[in-house]
């Protein structure tokens, strides 16, 4: 078991988003969280990442996490390769630069490693976020709308990366509004908290 949410309730801004939500994610599994805007999909990811505490219930994780949201968290004035290496070095990974170079190649940004982050387009920034996730080599991926801003080739690359990660024993929890071709992925539809 890589991630377990047991009878979790989440409140944001004084509003109860969901209650009694349970979810387990083991090696090779993927769960796609769907639901309308503002229903709490991103909050569920932040909860799973430990960035917010559950109002009720328990969240258990084993192993490291890689999180990708619309917030890129890369130094915009630095070159893309250097900005990503910073995070890989914080992970304490050996040969951080080589891992970053490989992950940039995987997401199709290998030729942009020396370009300052501020010059990247929206889609390239999304790919850069995924490159950081790849370089982290964490068993659990938490991806918030990872397909946003990606072109057709980018979405295919994303699907391939997720499949490879699952095949290697990793798990993925992701939110999305667009259909992604993920084999045997479970769907968790959030429909909001309705007071009894």
């Amino acid at each position, binding site marked *: 078991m890589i991630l377990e949410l047991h009878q979790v309730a989440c409140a944001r801004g004084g509003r109860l988003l969901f209650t009694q939500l349970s979810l387990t994610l083991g090696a090779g599994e993927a769960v796609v969280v769907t639901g309308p805007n503002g229903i709490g999909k991103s909050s569920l990811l*932040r909860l799973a*990442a*430990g*960035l*917010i*505490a559950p109002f009720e219930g328990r969240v258990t994780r084993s192993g*490291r*996490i*890689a*999180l990708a*949201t619309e*917030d*890129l*968290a*890369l*130094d*915009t*004035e630095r070159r893309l390769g250097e900005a990503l290496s*910073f*995070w890989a*070095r*914080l*992970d*304490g990974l050996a040969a951080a630069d080589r891992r970053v170079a490989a992950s940039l190649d995987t997401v199709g940004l290998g030729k942009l490693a020396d370009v300052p982050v501020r010059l990247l387009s929206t889609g390239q920034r999304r790919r850069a976020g995924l490159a950081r996730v790849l370089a982290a080599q964490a068993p659990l991926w938490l991806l918030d709308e990872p397909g946003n801003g990606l072109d057709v080739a980018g979405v295919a690359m994303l699907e391939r990366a997720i499949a490879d990660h699952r095949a290697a024993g990793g798990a993925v929890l992701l939110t999305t509004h667009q259909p992604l071709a993920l084999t045997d992925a479970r769907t968790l539809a959030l429909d909001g908290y309705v007071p009894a």
Partner: protein
Amino acid sequence: MTAALTLVATLIARDVRRGYAGGGAGLVCGFFLLSVVLFPFAIGPDRAVLMRVGAGAIWVAALLAALLPVERLVAPDVESGWFDQIRVHGLSLPLVMALRIVAHWLAFAPPLMLAALVAAGLFGLETTALVRVEAGLLLGTPGLAALAVATGALTAGLRGAGGLAGLLLLPLALPLLIFGAGSGDMGAPKLLAAVSLMLVAGAPWIAAAAIRSVRD
């Protein structure tokens, strides 16, 4: 042990680089010197008066200069989700903020202390007074750096953060100013060091709590 040192070095190097990037340190020194230059214009060229007010003027200018980078110290990283990634990586926020204080001090204090040499020349300070001013800055600037980081975190994401930071930082920095400007007096350096140490010890926890409350 090696991994911990690599982590510390990586975080400090990143923040120092950001401190110096885009002429940040140069801006602080330029503002400091310009502020200092205003005093002789305002109070006249009397050498005895200038020597008497020199240390105080240098400290006032240092406080004002310390305000300049406050908005850039924490807010951009809060907005970009940098601190979320730090927490996901399992790093302690107070530790990261303590390292940010060290980095800010490295980017801010040595250039300021060099600029203070020029300022001391403008006021005609004698060697003994100059040494006292520099020693005072050495003891007081860590506290000033801590206060700047804590203020930057407390005002991150707020509208009018720059003005608010000034209103918050300047009153809290008064003990540093009082004991720093009077560092020639008996006991003042010890009190300055004590205030500075207290700020350095408390600021990482305050800054970390402020960042959590913004993002939670």
